[in-house]
């Protein structure tokens, strides 16, 4: 998961300063590592270079000079692409899934978050079928079985989370857009 996509998602609601972005990131994604300011500005710099955001203003407000940024059309397109794509089903993707749901709610609403959850669920389920077939194969080694079990256990946990999150997605939206 990239910080860049999360920043694009936060900017979908309107122009923000680097400071606002850091604060919102840390608040909305409490399970993620807090962003360092340096990382926010470096990421914004790359996004600007790639034409995904542009500077939309500066203000001084008595303190140090602050630049605000906004999404470009290309940036919105990249964000939509990310929100519509499923993550490769692998162990330890849960925090990415979580971030994507929150960003989808902020940037595009309940339907987008729901579509994403459904697509991700299908991707997880097909991966679980592949792993199950691999471990049930007649020539599977114990090592294959143990490795498949490891991945299956994590994917199964993700699936439960996907299901319960879907029932809570409307409430979650009220909270993140409050």
């Amino acid at each position: 998961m990239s910080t860049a996509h999360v920043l694009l998602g936060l900017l979908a609601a309107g122009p923000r300063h680097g400071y606002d972005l850091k604060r919102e990131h840390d608040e909305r994604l409490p399970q993620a590592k807090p962003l360092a300011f340096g990382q926010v500005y470096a990421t914004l710099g790359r996004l600007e270079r790639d034409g995904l955001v542009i500077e939309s203003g500066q203000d001084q407000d008595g303190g140090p000079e602050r630049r605000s940024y906004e999404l470009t059309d290309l940036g919105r397109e990249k964000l939509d692409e990310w929100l519509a794509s499923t993550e490769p089903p692998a162990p330890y993707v849960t925090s990415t899934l979580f971030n994507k749901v929150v960003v989808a709610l902020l940037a595009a609403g309940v339907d987008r978050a729901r579509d994403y959850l459904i697509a991700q669920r299908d991707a997880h389920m097909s991966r679980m079928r592949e792993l199950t077939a691999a471990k049930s194969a007649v020539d599977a080694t114990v090592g294959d079985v143990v490795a498949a079990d490891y991945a299956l256990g994590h994917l199964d946990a993700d699936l439960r989370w996907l299901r319960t999150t879907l029932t809570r997605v409307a409430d979650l939206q009220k909270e993140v857009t409050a």
Partner: protein
Amino acid sequence: MSTPLLSGTGIAKSYGPTPALRGVDIAVGEGEIVAVTGPSGCGKSTLLHCLAGILRADQGQVEYREQDLGLWSDSARSRLRRTEFGVLFQFGQLVPELTAAENVALPLLLAGSGRREAREAALTWLDRFDVADLADNRPGAMSGGQQQRCAVARALVTEPRVLFADEPTGALDQLAGEQVLDQIVRASREQNTAVVLVTHEARVAAYADREVVLRDGVVDLTGLGIGVDR
């Protein structure tokens, strides 16, 4: 899919005023393993019972080899269940007074096989599922996993065209459950037996070729089996 082996069209079934199924379409191909999943009370067990001809649907059609089972007599449907269908439930439902071998031989005897032939077939199946050494034990002297393996052997001994399995691992620990599922899948592949596998667990559903998710008595195309709060 070409003509399915087994299909249900618009299946509806109520228990008194409570609808369990409200118009379900499902098709199972020859040799295909289909998981029927969904939360408790979604109607998945009722669907299995209707497809297996154990329950009569209030509305809709169940067709096996393009024949409408609703038009068959109870005795004709019972005969079908003894020969073409195998049924497996959460708890093995072995006859406690009979030994493992006698339990497994039972469907063959009911279908008219000779005693010796039935016992030999039973021993072959018990051996296949690694419980041959328990052939002369009664169910009370076996673990839950061993009993369920005997029950799978009993469900498959007639080499049915369709196996109906309702939460077949629900009472087992994970490893015992996996052994049972491995056996079901292997037997299905070797004999081209279709399987309707009812389960609420994703890890069990992952043994199937595909899944049909039910919610509140209808097929849920989102695959999530839950309502969406908007």
